[in-house]
């Protein structure tokens, strides 16, 4: 079943991704769903081309769960939180 309205999600940027985009967060409207994590990343890249610098060493967090960029299908809902997660360096 397709939804009539496509969801709007909040994208959070941290660390180097925040520096590259100059943003801490932004809204992403009309995101197709379900969507693969790879396609979601492509969508983000189209919006923020400088994120390309993170390519191949970044993951997403969708609703605070890590998701590798690849074929995993994501069902997004209005208001979902999607984070761009550069390599961790806590500790």
């Amino acid at each position, binding site marked *: 079943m397709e939804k009539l309205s496509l969801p709007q999600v909040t994208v*959070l940027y*941290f660390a*180097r991704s925040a520096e590259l985009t100059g943003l801490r967060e932004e809204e992403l409207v009309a995101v197709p769903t379900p969507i693969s994590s790879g396609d979601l990343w492509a969508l983000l890249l189209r919006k923020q081309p400088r994120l390309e610098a993170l390519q191949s060493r970044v993951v997403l967090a969708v609703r605070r769960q890590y998701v590798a960029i690849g074929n995993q299908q994501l069902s997004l809902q209005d208001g979902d939180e999607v984070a761009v*997660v*550069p*390599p*961790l*360096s*806590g*500790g």
Partner: protein
Amino acid sequence: MERLHLSVWPPALQTGQYQPESDIFRLSRDWLSVQEVVDSVSSSRCGAVSVFIGTTFTILLFLRGRKVIGLQYEAYEAMVQSELSRLAAALRARWPSLLHVCIHHRLGWVKVGEASVVMAISSPHRQDGQEAIQHAVTLLKASVPIWKKEVYDTQESSWKENSECSWSQRGGASD
């Protein structure tokens, strides 16, 4: 100081004369007190407290000809909470005897020589606690969404990458 995260594990309180095991997580913009972290995990049941303190490691950076003046930390705070709960659950699954787990982590500006993380685990017997704390540090570095940037006297800075993080370039720093 933000007392962000306080959760009780296991979720259902046990009855009886002893307190339930509890995990205390805190993200702090102030100096970390080792004594406070140790006190958080102490109880009359515990025979051993194992502690790990992570501090700025500067000698290699001196050798590269620039001096680290400090570290800037940031976190995905809401997710730190859920990942630390997951971390504590993983420790308890592997070492069921653990009593208390406490982790305080710095955020914001951290001067060279100050601790960025202090963690303590109490256990009736030391072997469990000592193994668990090693694993805890590895899990924290691999999975808790916290980032640090080294800031140099040249006004340059560099985001660090933990080699334990599966999507980092092992040990590489991005300039």
